[in-house]
């Protein structure tokens, strides 16, 4: 894996995008979308996380093995949250 040195401009653009998304999530929290409050917050959160993972953590320029390893954590996360299936089918967790 040759180390891919990104330009300062790339990092600065990602940082600027993260700050815009921060403002967006704080502003969005002042509006009531009902059940979608959490959906909006999570979409913005995931976007920020993906930016950090791809650029700051450099996965975008990593080898296929690094891609695989970085993805495994999220596969686990999905498996973990399947636990909710138990709660939902017992009717104890109604909505988000």
């Amino acid at each position, binding site marked *: 894996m040759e180390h891919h040195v990104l330009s300062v401009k790339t990092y600065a653009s990602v940082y600027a995008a993260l700050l815009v998304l921060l403002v967006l999530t704080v502003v969005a929290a002042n509006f009531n979308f009902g059940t979608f409050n959490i959906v909006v917050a999570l979409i913005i959160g995931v976007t920020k996380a993906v930016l950090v993972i791809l650029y700051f953590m*450099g996965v975008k320029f990593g080898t296929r093995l690094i891609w695989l390893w970085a993805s495994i954590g999220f596969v686990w996360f999905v498996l973990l949250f399947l636990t909710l299936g138990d709660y939902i089918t017992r009717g104890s967790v109604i909505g988000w």
Partner: protein
Amino acid sequence: MSAEAVHAEHGLEQHVGVQYSTIEQQNESYIVGMWTFLVTEIMFFGALFLALTIYRSLYPAEFSEAHHRLDKFLGTVNTFILLSSSFSMALAVRYAQLGQRKGLIAMLLVTVLFAAGFLGVKSIEYGTKFEHHLFPGPSFDFNYEEREKQGIAEGGMAARGEEQAAVAGPIGLETNRTTGPVLEDRKQMFFVLYFAMTGLHAIHVLIGMVVMLVIILLAAIDHPAVRDYIPIEMAGLYWHFVDIVWIFLFPLLYLIGH
């Protein structure tokens, strides 16, 4: 004579261990190793995020009321600080990749300062929560702040006791499971999760600061261990992970009640 091959360019110096064929293979192994650790960290925090999801779904009204006690402004400030620290950390790693020691040290110092600022704000928040009796435990009293404002805080414990007695009834049986103390317990659960999650996160910030300070010291004496950029790259991966955890903690705890 050392059997190691040395890869040097600019101020960068990488020694290939005997167990590796190429420098590329060695670099990849380190990064994959670090990601393996980060996956275990995702499991660690993941369980707490699942607990938060379940409890907020079970008690939406109480969690919504409780989350308003968190300081949104300070939470936003801390998110800004942590995102900035991730940016300076990315630049530190970039300097390490280029073998520029001074830039590396400067950027790591900036990152450590951001981290200290984060913990400073966090300690102000924690202090206020303790003051308002919002730390989970025997002294937890959700309405303490409100009563204090009304100037009847002195009679607080007695009033609370009467309230509980009234709900429990003369024979001490819970007649209605969704009144008084039960609701208070649900609000307390929010603070259990708040302190568990942000506390665990703060410990990670503290460990990150120690790691960065060690790298700064090693770089300052031009220690061979940090002439290779990989240790800094690994510290960077850890730091960005800590940032990502906060990216989710902030909206889920501070912004969205239910």
